[in-house]
């Protein structure tokens, strides 16, 4: 099927359309698929499936490029890319950021495709095991990633997450459907749409904050290096990529879990296993790799319940099933058995789109990098305009754009005063389902909460969540106290704890000696670069 010219052509089209659509803020996978769905009616069923799957792969690839170059995530799953990737870009390491995104997306996609093909039947059995208590525990595990995103002040990070939960509670109650916290507003009767809130607080806030100062990027970073990472860098990414691919595929399998939860969990796990956890949130290559791998792997996981049971795990999969129905194919548990060519077409779409993006993805990214370096004011203007129009395009709603701008304003103060916008965004995305699953689970269990801790999978996930929360709070508080002690002693610190009063040369030597004790060369280069640029700029991680 991969060699059929008509299928190849539609996969190429799908990958390109998906990449362009994904790069537009607010243009979600569901919207991109819904816009192109009518074109599939004249195609063969195999070509239609391959085309739509290629679009979803393209969206997951394309949404990260503006996240890295402008700090604007194309979709909520690229939130963490906008944090670490953009920081790397601002430091001048654009090639490293884009290359990491490119490599991690491809490898994550290919690994997850192998899982999909080999395990679509066994993995679909997870659906029998993942009931409401397990889904709730999964969301709890995702919410504990808040601690990894809390930033310098863990208390402010927790307050930001609580604020995110408060926003998620606006709208219909998940059980009784009564309106909550709408204060008589007609538009708020269905609650806040997630995309405008997330893009507002993450992207618009950063764009507005960026307009405080006017300068050229070349003056600050000395130019953007567009060189593809070396093999040593790529080798260092393999561990977080593998973590991301497994987490993304596994959580993608669970209907309704959402790709965003998988990316946050993969990010958190990669940080736990990293030798340089302090870099996460400040331009971590490992964090970027784990997130990109997870968000691209989630696509294959998403297709497991769709093809295994005929149960769509996301909006784009609903549309895929609709396309199958139009072609006279009945979705359901017998789909693979009766029409195995649909599985082959989906696999071809995943692999084909990945290979096509493997060829054209890097040139596209480099071309966009050249465009972005033209003039900072022009880029900020275009990013703002595209964000506004992209969010408007979601539901053709002016209210969504106003919501985005309001949360952009709130996010501006959160950014300036140390409240983690990433923690807020995570809580908004997971908060509504978190409460709904808990309460519906209690109803199903007859009011008893015992099932939430007695079922094996649930008990393990709750235990891990509590442990991660405690470890995260303790380690963050310790790191903050250490920094304060050093500051009180007259020494400022860089993000990796080396006093800034040490001359640039000494700091470089200290970091090199520290890093030379480790086995992977990639960290030597990254740590040295971080320390050197930090002593130049005084707080690299927080500067524009």
């Amino acid at each position, binding site marked *: 099927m991969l060699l059929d010219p008509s299928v190849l052509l539609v996969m190429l089209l799908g990958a390109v359309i998906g990449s362009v659509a994904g790069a537009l803020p607010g*243009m979600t996978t569901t919207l991109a698929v819904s*816009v192109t769905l009518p074109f599939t009616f004249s195609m063969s069923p195999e070509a239609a499936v391959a085309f739509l799957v290629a679009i979803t792969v393209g969206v997951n690839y394309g949404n990260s490029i503006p996240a890295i170059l402008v700090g604007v995530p194309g979709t909520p799953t690229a939130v963490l890319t906008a944090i670490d990737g953009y920081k790397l870009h601002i430091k001048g390491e654009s090639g490293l950021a884009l290359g990491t995104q490119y490599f991690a997306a491809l490898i994550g996609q290919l690994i997850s495709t192998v899982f999909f093909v080999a395990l679509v039947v066994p993995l679909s059995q997870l659906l029998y095991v993942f009931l409401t208590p397990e889904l709730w525990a999964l969301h709890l595990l995702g919410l504990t990633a808040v601690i990894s995103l809390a*930033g310098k*002040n863990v*208390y*402010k990070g927790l*307050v930001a997450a*609580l*604020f995110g*939960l*408060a926003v998620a*509670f606006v709208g219909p*109650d998940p*059980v*009784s459907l*009564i309106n*909550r*916290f709408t204060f008589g507003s007609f538009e708020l009767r269905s609650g806040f749409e997630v995309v405008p809130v997330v893009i507002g607080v993450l992207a618009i806030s950063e764009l*507005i904050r960026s*307009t*405080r*100062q*006017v300068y050229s990027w070349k003056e*600050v970073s000395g130019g953007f290096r567009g060189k593809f990472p070396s093999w040593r860098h790529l080798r260092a990414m393999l561990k977080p990529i593998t973590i991301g691919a497994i987490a993304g595929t596994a959580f993608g399998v669970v209907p309704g879990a959402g790709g965003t939860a998988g990316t946050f969990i993969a990010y958190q796990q990669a940080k736990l296993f990293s030798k340089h956890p302090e870099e996460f949130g400040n331009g971590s290559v490992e964090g970027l790799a784990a997130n990109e791998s997870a968000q691209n792997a989630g696509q294959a996981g998403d297709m497991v319940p769709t093809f295994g049971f005929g149960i769509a795990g996301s909006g784009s999969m609903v549309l895929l099933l609709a396309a199958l129905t139009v072609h006279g194919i009945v979705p359901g548990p017998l789909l693979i058995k009766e029409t195995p060519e649909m599985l082959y077409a989906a696999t071809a779409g995943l692999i084909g789109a990945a290979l096509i993006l493997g060829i054209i993805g890097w040139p596209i990214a480099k071309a966009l990098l050249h465009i972005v370096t033209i*003039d900072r*004011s*022009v880029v*900020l*203007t275009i990013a*703002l*305009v595209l964000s*506004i*129009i992209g969010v*408007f*395009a979601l539901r*053709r709603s*002016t209210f969504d754009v*106003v919501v*985005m*701008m309001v949360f*952009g*304003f709130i996010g*501006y*103060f959160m*950014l*300036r*005063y*140390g409240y983690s916008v990433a923690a807020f965004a995570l809580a908004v995305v997971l908060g509504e389902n978190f*409460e709904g699953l*808990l*309460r*519906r689970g*209690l*109803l199903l269990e007859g*009011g008893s909460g015992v099932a939430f801790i007695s079922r094996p999978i649930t008990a393990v996930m709750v235990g891990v969540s509590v442990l991660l929360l405690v470890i995260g709070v303790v380690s963050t508080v310790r790191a903050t106290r250490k920094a304060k002690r050093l500051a009180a002693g007259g020494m400022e610190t860089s993000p990796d704890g080396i006093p800034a009063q040490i001359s640039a040369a000494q700091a470089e030597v200290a970091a090199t000696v520290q890093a030379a004790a480790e086995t992977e060369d990639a960290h030597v280069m990254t740590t040295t670069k971080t320390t050197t640029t930090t002593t130049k*700029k*005084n707080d690299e991680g*927080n*500067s*524009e």
Partner: protein
Amino acid sequence: MDKRIDVAVAAGAAVIGAVMLVAALLLPEGSIRDPLGPSTMPAVVGGLLIVGGAFLALRRFVVWRSTAVKVPEEGSEDLENYSSSAPRAFLVWGICLAYAILIPYAGFLILTPFLFAGLLWTLHFRKVLPVVLISLLGTAAIYCLFNIVLLVRLPHGPLTGLI
């Protein structure tokens, strides 16, 4: 950062918590009853927001007299050696908000060039010919991309029926 604004932000969080707590306690039960009800989780979150916001505000009050107005940064800092202007940031925000409110009435094709020009001028990109070209070409490109390629109808305002 300014400790007064830091306190104001923390107090704002506490106020949001208080509003949420009060509103949650006034919620009706609903026809479907579950052990927690519609009030419990919002009340818990509201209460925690009050505690968190009050804590963050009080830590400043405790050492108010012994600290300067400017305290160590806890958020994103501006770059050194370049002047910063909060009014410019708020002006950019205001221009975008005004655009969002006016676009259903004025239409995309009429209003967007002014949005481009206004933002570029505010961000000190003041070469007249490039501003005009970017405004017109940018508007046309976005219109083609969304209206023609992606089939997302943008508002036409007074041009409705003519296009």
